[in-house]
């Protein structure tokens, strides 16, 4: 609980600092503080679980559950599961070497590789293009 309180306090302190720099006090502070507090709570809980040696889900756990739902079984077994196994192997190798940033990067890259393997990156690319085009018009 002590760790949890520290993480939440850090979230609030960062919010006040950021809004002070931006010159945005009042409602903006509250609007930014609430999501930060929620994120801080979950991050703190995760830290506490890690320190207690609790069970932590492996990377790609939720994404695999979603993909398994709509992906054909053969493609799921041959492509998705294998890509996820690669990501986990690299992730745990990085963690074992004490390289936390590398582990984080492997996670991001692995998730992208999973999406790419399924061709979902095309949807992301199209969405990004629509976003940029709509911005360039304004």
């Amino acid at each position, binding site marked *: 609980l002590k760790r949890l309180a520290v993480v939440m306090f850090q979230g609030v302190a960062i919010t006040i600092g950021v809004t002070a720099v931006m010159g945005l006090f009042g409602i903006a502070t509250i609007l930014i503080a609430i999501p930060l507090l929620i994120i801080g709570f979950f991050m703190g809980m995760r830290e506490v679980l890690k320190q207690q040696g609790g069970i932590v889900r492996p990377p790609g756990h939720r994404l695999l559950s979603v993909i398994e739902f709509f992906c054909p079984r*053969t493609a799921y*077994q*041959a*492509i998705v*599961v*294998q*890509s*996820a*196994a*690669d990501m*986990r*192997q*690299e992730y745990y190798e990085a963690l074992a070497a004490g390289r936390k940033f590398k582990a984080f990067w492997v996670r991001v*890259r*692995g998730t*992208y*590789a*999973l999406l*790419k*393997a399924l061709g979902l*990156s095309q949807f992301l690319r199209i969405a990004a293009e629509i976003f940029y085009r709509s911005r360039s018009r304004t």
Partner: protein
Amino acid sequence: MKRNVEPEERVLTLSGKEAFVLELLLAKPAAEMYGLELVRESGERLKRGTIYVTLGRMEDKGYVESREEEKRPDASGLPRRLYRATGYGQRSFQAWQMARDAGRLRLAEVGGGL
């Protein structure tokens, strides 16, 4: 997943990437490799996001075969699939190499004549 293709129906359609995968697999004939090993052996020339799609296509064509890795009873985690080149894959790669070398020789002759 594996689609049976009759030998007489087979046409040599080996792309550069597929030939490179076969080259890596044939470098250690007895060994079986999984996707990440191939990516590492290739010096990142093969990409993580596409390697299993390529291997799946090659398995359909009959160039490689795969099996699920046997796991120890106490081991956990996702099941891995190990790949190795088939005899047909080996012969196709040799034919591809010969065609490539012949093409290079021909180009050198044409280039020398100019």
